[in-house]
């Protein structure tokens, strides 16, 4: 059942060099996007461990986004290629867990794509609103 006025929680792991910078630029450009996104800064999208994503879902995230530099633009040369491979695996695992794969997205957002950052968050937010809370993998014991 989807609650009325459901505000999804979004966790966004953003790499320091591209996507975090893109989010900063969205700020500098005074672009507006929903409040419910929490950005976690990581050196490179390849730093993100699968456990971190699963923990986010367990602890209340309705959607998780991993964002890094465009393929070929990685500050560390090859990091995002590893991200791509690793996260594709996780994507198939989410469906295996019975979770809607649309709750987990991987995006390439460069340091100057402020508008893309904004639109990605907005679209993701809309998708999650339709999907409702992600209680399938939620840790139910602490009553979130």
């Amino acid at each position, binding site marked *: 059942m989807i609650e009325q006025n459901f505000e999804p*929680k979004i966790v966004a792991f953003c790499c320091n*060099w591209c996507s*975090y910078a893109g989010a*900063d630029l969205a700020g*500098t450009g005074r672009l507006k996007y929903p409040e419910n996104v929490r950005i*976690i800064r990581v*050196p490179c999208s390849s*730093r993100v461990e699968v456990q971190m994503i699963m923990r986010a879902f367990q602890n209340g995230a309705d959607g998780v986004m991993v964002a890094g*530099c465009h393929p070929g633009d990685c500050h560390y040369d090859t990091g995002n290629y590893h991200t791509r491979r690793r996260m594709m695996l996780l994507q198939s695992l989410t469906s295996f867990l019975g979770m809607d794969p649309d709750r987990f997205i991987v995006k390439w957002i460069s340091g100057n794509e402020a508008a893309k950052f904004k639109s990605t968050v907005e679209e993701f937010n809309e998708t999650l609103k339709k999907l409702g809370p992600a209680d399938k993998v939620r840790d139910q014991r602490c009553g979130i």
Partner: protein
Amino acid sequence: MRVGVFICWCGSNIKNMVDVEKVAKEAEKMPRVVYSQDVQYLCSEVGQADISKAIDEHKLDRIVIGACSPRMHESTFQQLLESKGLNPYYVEIANIREQCSWVHTDKDKATVKATELVKKAVAKSYHAIPLTSDLLKVNKKALVIGGGIAGIQAALDIADAGYPVDLVEQKPSIGGRMAQFDKTFPTLDCSACILTPKMVEAATHENITLYTYSEVENVAGYVGNFKVKIKQKAKSVKQDICNGCGDCMEKCPKKVANEFDEGNSKRKAIYTLFPQAVPNKPVIDRDNCIYYKTGKCGLCEKICPTKAIDYNQEDEIVENEYGAIIAATGFDIKDPQDLSEYYYGNHPDVITSLELERQLNASGPTSGKVIRPSNGKTPEKIVFVQCVGSRDRNKGNAYCSKVCCLYTAKHTLLLNEKFPETESYVFNIDVRTGGKGYEEFYERARHKGAKYLRGQVSKVEPLGDADNKLLVRGYDSSIGEQVEIEADLVVLATSIEPKVGSSKIAGLLGLSSDSDGFFSEAHPKLKPVETQAQGIYLAGVCQGPKDIPEAVSQASGASAKAIILFNKGEVKSVPTTAMVNEEICSGCMQCKPVCPYEAISREYVTERVAGKEVKRPVASINRALCQGCGACAGLCRSGAMDIGGFTSKQIMAEVDTL
């Protein structure tokens, strides 16, 4: 653990959208927070003094800042902590400006979010570990990629400071675009006259090694210690034996379009790029040489008095080490053939400004005469079209190419001087003359009779008369009317674009580019020559359109950065490196192949198991090489790998505050 929280107003930037007092109050309730305060400007001296005082009075050992992006001021606060005897990595920043006050419109919601961001940072701060960096030796040698005026200037400056420089140029000669120009604005100096001495100086400087006809193949390493592979393409002429007599070029039967003259003249298959080329010894263009195509000919070998021709020469890979790299890869111009309204490519008398530049040049394809390519006669009416492919997102590039207004003014002046009977019309959106003496120069062009029409050209088409003239249709907004001009020659000021192949260089160097393909500087205002990659600097148009004085200044700026690095002689290594927990590392070495810097190796620890000494493999990090990307930590299935500043505990703590 005693955490202090400081919330910045950033003047009104944060305060207008976030209730900073409330956030500071809420922070006080967070576990282990013993002090909290809001401050008008945390980055100011007063703000820093407030933090410093609170550290002393409340014995704080973790600092959490709610302010602008850590990308702005993280190092400011880190330095403050260091000066207070705390580890710089004991400060954590909640980005409540870029990620909150600036992007939201509901003050209540923004205040809640700011509080949560602070809570997240506080949680992360509990798990902060002290980090240090090592001092690494810098290899005091520079690599400059690109032998145009920017690259030459950068190389000369570094060489004059006493450090060796390698200058790599993909063409057979250095000189770049400036060598193609006839005169330079606003002084009308002869371009070659001011450039050639610099080229010669670069070639003869004891600290400079030229690699012409060469390309950078691979770049590894990091600031102070880059390892670079340079491919020296086979020149097929032994450069040490050739005396540059040029007999071979005369006798070579194969003629090809001369790129130096924008295709408007012919050169031979064995050639020097232009008469004053440096080095002034020919190379064989194997793609066009008859010998390489059919195995026959061999004329140059027969004719060469010094026996310098060597058809079997092979490409050579040179491997060198550098402390700093300067990218000066320059530009190309947009092919106006994409913009069909200008009829370029369909009528010989529609040419680009660079083609006109070559015509004007005494050693160019027309020996300095300006002609209509269709009939070789001097044109009477010349129409200049500005912003061809510039300042129009839909038809090319959104940006302004910056130099076209001035070089067109120059062209009208030169035409007026050499061929007073010609008439020049300049269609423009507006004329941009920022630069010393530039407005005066433009005024002079108008004064001498160039007619400026404010408006854009909608179409160029053949008139179909006996003279094969062109009809230029455009709009003159100053009179609010459509105008038509029957022109003998149409000159297109085509957009400047990043050099073809510069994206490959960006990939090799780990540089990011802006949406137009120009290399991105580290900060648009305060770090215009640095890049996000330490030890790599930018010079010239590869970073964005600029004129010669700007390119030269930037080159000197870039070389100053390299010289500073060399003078210091050492750099601090990245403190946020990977760390292995040897206890739980299984020695699987899955992490090794993902490391882009080859920083991971297998080592052995000795342990006592059941009374026996055993050796167990574990991963080990070379901290000098590791750049802290975290690819290894993201992958490690044992959870044995961690990244300083971004440990699993720290990130999990952030996740848990959801």
